[in-house]
């Protein structure tokens, strides 16, 4: 790791000030992606602003939604009685991220801000009509993810919390990459009064995306049968050593079927 400066402010405003004082500073949340990258010397920020002291880790039921602080560790979400009661599938998604050490350190905000095409959380944000609250604004999930590793976040903008809408029914099923255990395909299906949202992670070249065809099919009939006749296109899907676009297309359909139970 190149040398860098570490600061740990106590509030969001302090964190924003700290990052402004750096020419190429980085916010450090759980560090599960950032630190391995720094170890490989694939980035050289002049400073790291640790936002774990900014009190961004509360989880609250707000009626229509539950609001989860960005610095909530995966383990906290997995074990939260609030989340378990309101959106149990979100808790089990958190329970399935990485390994236990990743869950003990990794955070919701870090995962969402990074928007790794293979991360689990972005699918929940998208499928659960979440709103991303930053220090300066609130962004609807549909506007938040803009491409592989890209989001609507400005350079010096911090996610403070995310509000997830409570669905009437939801499920997340992932097919992990056998080596890295990241999602090779992960499908989050959420049923709301007005219809079904299906978000797919791990598979799209542009990162997480909503699968409109499956949404339409499931909105009219919420059963795996309604997917049988669908032909899932492989255009725009990731092809790598572990899975071709065609295989990913198959997994999208298969994981969705399994999610709709």
């Amino acid at each position, binding site marked *: 790791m190149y*040398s860098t400066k570490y600061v740990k402010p106590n509030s969001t405003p302090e964190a924003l000030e700290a990052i402004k004082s750096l020419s190429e500073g980085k916010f450090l949340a759980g560090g599960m992606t950032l630190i*391995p990258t720094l170890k490989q010397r694939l980035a050289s920020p002049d400073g790291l602003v*640790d936002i774990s002291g900014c009190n961004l880790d509360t989880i609250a039921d707000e009626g229509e939604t539950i609001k989860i602080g960005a610095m909530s560790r995966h383990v906290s979400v997995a074990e939260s009685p609030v989340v378990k009661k309101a959106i149990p599938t979100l808790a089990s998604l958190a329970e399935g991220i990485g390994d236990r050490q*990743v869950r*003990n350190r990794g955070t919701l905000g870090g995962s969402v801000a990074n928007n790794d095409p293979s991360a689990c959380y972005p699918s929940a944000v998208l499928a659960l009509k979440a709103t991303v609250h930053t220090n300066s604004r609130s962004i609807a999930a549909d506007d938040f993810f803009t491409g592989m590793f890209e989001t609507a976040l400005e350079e010096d903008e911090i996610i403070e919390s995310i509000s997830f809408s409570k669905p009437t029914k939801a499920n997340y099923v992932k097919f992990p990459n056998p080596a890295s255990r990241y999602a090779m395909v992960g499908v989050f299906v959420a049923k709301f009064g007005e219809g079904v949202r299906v978000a797919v992670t791990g598979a799209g070249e542009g990162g997480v995306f909503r699968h409109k065809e499956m949404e339409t099919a499931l909105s009219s009939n919420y059963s795996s049968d309604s997917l049988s006749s669908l032909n899932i296109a492989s255009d725009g899907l990731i092809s790598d050593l572990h899975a071709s676009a065609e295989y990913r297309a198959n997994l999208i359909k298969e994981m969705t079927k399994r999610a709709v139970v």
Partner: protein
Amino acid sequence: MGDISLTINGKVETHDVGDNTLLVDFIREKAGLTGTHIGCDTSQCGACVVHLDGVSVKACTILAAQAAGSEVTTIEGIGSSDSLHPMQEAFQENHGLQCGFCTPGMVMSAIELVSKNKNASEKEIRDGLEGNICRCTGYHNIVKSVKAGAEKMGV
């Protein structure tokens, strides 16, 4: 550079290190505790697992600065040769180790695993050890050890 201070196995360790120092290097190089190992660069093998304020973390994926002021427990801190921790005993009795390199991390993960789930089934133990790679044992005896360790710990 600057002083970073944390408690390792009950002993305060204060050292003048760069902010970019990883916790695992702080433990190995500064505190001289070489039981915590480094087996990969991508945070997957788990040879470096320690407990940070009671939860298991991979010491290669956290800065010493992030752990400042915290309590760290390493493999050296859970038992001694005269009085092994029940999980260490279980690993010995069930031949849960061969070359010993992954063992410290494996034991530290196992302790957290069973303290959270005392009646863990074989499947739960296998799933719970996802973050620790062993090349020698084929995991069969590790799973047996963790089960026996849970019973011994009486958690």
